[in-house]
């Protein structure tokens, strides 16, 4: 298995919000995030974006 670079890892992290990743994909992503702070932050920021956008338009936001 080829390890992911940051571009592939963030793309997979994004897809993880939209479909169920395969086992191989999940392993590769976890391996990458375990050693890459940048991609871990971006993954958290994607989740935050989801939370924020869901609140958009509610209670005058």
């Amino acid at each position: 298995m080829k390890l992911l670079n940051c571009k592939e890892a963030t793309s997979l992290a994004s897809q993880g919000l939209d479909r169920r990743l395969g086992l191989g994909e999940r392993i590769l992503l976890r391996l990458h995030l375990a050693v890459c702070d940048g991609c871990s932050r971006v993954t958290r920021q994607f989740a935050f974006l989801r939370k924020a956008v869901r609140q958009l338009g509610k209670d005058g936001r």
Partner: protein
Amino acid sequence: MKDFRAQVEEQRPYLLRYASLQLRDPAAAEDAVQETLVAALAGEKSFGGRSNLRTWLTGILKHKLIDAIRKSGRETQIESDEALEALFNESGHWKTFPPEWRSPDQSLEQKQFFAALEMCLEGLPEKTARVFLMREHMGLETDEICKDLGVTPTHVWVLLYRARMALRKCLEMNWFDVGRKPGRL
């Protein structure tokens, strides 16, 4: 108790805001809301007070918006995204490491944050914004978006990825401004 028409009419500003997020054309948003209100008034019996009125109206509006999106045409081209490519070097690693955001959850309490978010959404290419909002604001699944826009799942995932990357960059620069100079890790 207020009559049904007045209660429905009260929801108009909320619905219009919802529709305007999805459709960039204000006239089309207006139309979708108008159709929703007409359908709601005609369908008062089917509402029957059994659920939250806003939720019920939003459900009708979603269908109207999807109709409007379908009508506005289907295209399948994916153009390249230079802003995204510019973040990575040839081996696909960050040129500049993405910084941590300071207390993002506190931002959710601030009205100005949502103004910044909306500004960033407006900066996205139209189709990218549309797919992103169908997914994250309307909460549609990939296959529903594919059906409505006539595109492949892979295409949808590419556009969602681009939207997320562009939005996080935009918020970083315009909201979370972490005070680092470009290029520093």
